[in-house]
């Protein structure tokens, strides 16, 4: 009780220090951000303990709810899923045939085998602490090799990218946030564009050429040209294509492949092109290269 009890002088000192901090934040924004991030590391580590506890409590409650209480309509859902399964099995057979044909052609053309990116599995332990960003908190941080700007995915598709890390946790900005942008292409027509989040929590593909033949239902995937995602990861399906009069590009609304409200486990892409990185290391004279004995 006595610790924060102070005299008039200490109160004035605290106010002056806060005013100085404000001045530093406005005059030297990037430097002060770096200092706050560095000093906040221990705070993040301390907070990650109760965060894990609350998260496991939340998971337990959700499991009880979904496992026992929210079972209404499960029979109808099961019937629909069986129908869907039959359809997907048929599609799978066709794709298997197509894969064999592609492998044969790749062998003929001597194509390089695409490597699987190096990934880290992480659990979602929370949502963004404010209402202003669509983000999630992961239970893996710098000590697990997670760094800012790394891509985050699930087997269904793209989730977002890491924007902040502490030693034991990291914050991911979701693909559906308006501050996020991913280089993408339309799977069918190969038209390139940028996918951004929208205010309504969905996504929009911008800069589609006017002469493009895209239509609703087309799938959009990562182009792999920039950022932390390899080519070919599912982003979403086009639901509505827009073109205003006088616009030089078209844009399309997307339904994301991943349901961002039901994320439990995700994969952080440590290196999108492992093979490319490895081959870079083998080139003599490259900076930071470790020579083999």
């Amino acid at each position, binding site marked *: 009780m006595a610790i924060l009890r102070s005299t008039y002088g200490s109160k004035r000192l605290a106010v002056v220090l806060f005013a100085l901090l404000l001045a530093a934040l406005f005059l030297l924004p990037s430097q002060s951000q770096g200092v*706050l991030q560095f000093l906040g590391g221990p705070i993040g580590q301390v907070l990650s303990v109760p965060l894990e506890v609350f998260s496991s409590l939340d998971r337990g409650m959700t499991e009880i709810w979904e496992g026992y209480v929210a079972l209404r309509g499960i029979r109808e859902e099961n019937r629909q899923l069986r129908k869907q399964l039959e359809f997907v099995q048929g599609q799978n057979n066709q794709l298997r045939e197509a894969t064999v044909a592609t492998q044969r052609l790749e062998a003929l053309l001597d194509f390089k085998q695409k490597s699987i990116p190096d990934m880290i599995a992480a659990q979602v332990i929370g949502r963004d602490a404010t209402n202003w960003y669509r983000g999630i908190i992961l239970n893996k941080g710098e000590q697990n090799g997670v760094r800012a700007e790394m891509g985050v995915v699930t087997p269904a598709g793209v989730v977002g990218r890491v924007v902040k890390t502490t030693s034991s946790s990291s914050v991911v900005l979701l693909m559906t946030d308006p501050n996020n942008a991913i280089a993408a292409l339309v799977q069918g027509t190969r038209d390139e564009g940028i996918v951004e989040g929208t205010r309504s929590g969905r996504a929009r593909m911008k800069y589609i050429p006017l002469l493009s033949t895209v239509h609703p239902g087309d799938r959009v995937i990562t182009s792999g040209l920039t950022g932390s995602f390899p080519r070919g990861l599912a982003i979403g399906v086009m639901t509505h294509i827009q073109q205003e009069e006088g616009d030089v590009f078209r844009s399309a609304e997307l339904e994301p492949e991943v349901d961002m409200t039901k994320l439990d486990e995700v994969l952080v892409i440590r290196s999108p092109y492992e093979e490319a990185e490895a081959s870079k290391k083998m080139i003599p004279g490259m900076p930071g290269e470790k020579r083999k004995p």
Partner: protein
Amino acid sequence: MKIWLYIALLLTVIPLQTTLLHHVTVLDVRPDLGLVVVCLVGFFGGELDGLIIGFILGWSQDIMSAGELWVNVVSKGGAGFVAGLAGRHLAHITPMVLLIGLGAISCLSSLVFVYSMKTSDWDLMWHAFHSKALIQAVLDAFIGAGAYWLFARRWVTDPFLQQDRL
């Protein structure tokens, strides 16, 4: 005693905000528990307590958010200080006074977020304000006033206000 209460608040508010509170949303907006706690600390504990707790809580919130690392530090620290000043100058705090005060402070702190968007698009700023800030202000005000009402019913608050105020 008070320091342990503050530590407990710092260790529980942010985990609660990030894990369990997303089940309690109105139009996809959650109340800002951090702001409510900081304002209550300011009202009961004075400007210095509000400022310090606001600063630390805001910093923790910024670490667990995708936004820039100053927005909550500034808004929560400022909110704690303003709440402390208001608490000192108001003769008698009632749940209704707190309801209006918390709503106003929540709106003011949301303006810091709108400023941090660094946009000149008035449409975007207005959308952010009425679709998020106003709803959050209403939620914060009701939760804060409710907490105060419970607190005031259970414990006599005047000694705490008079003796422990900085």
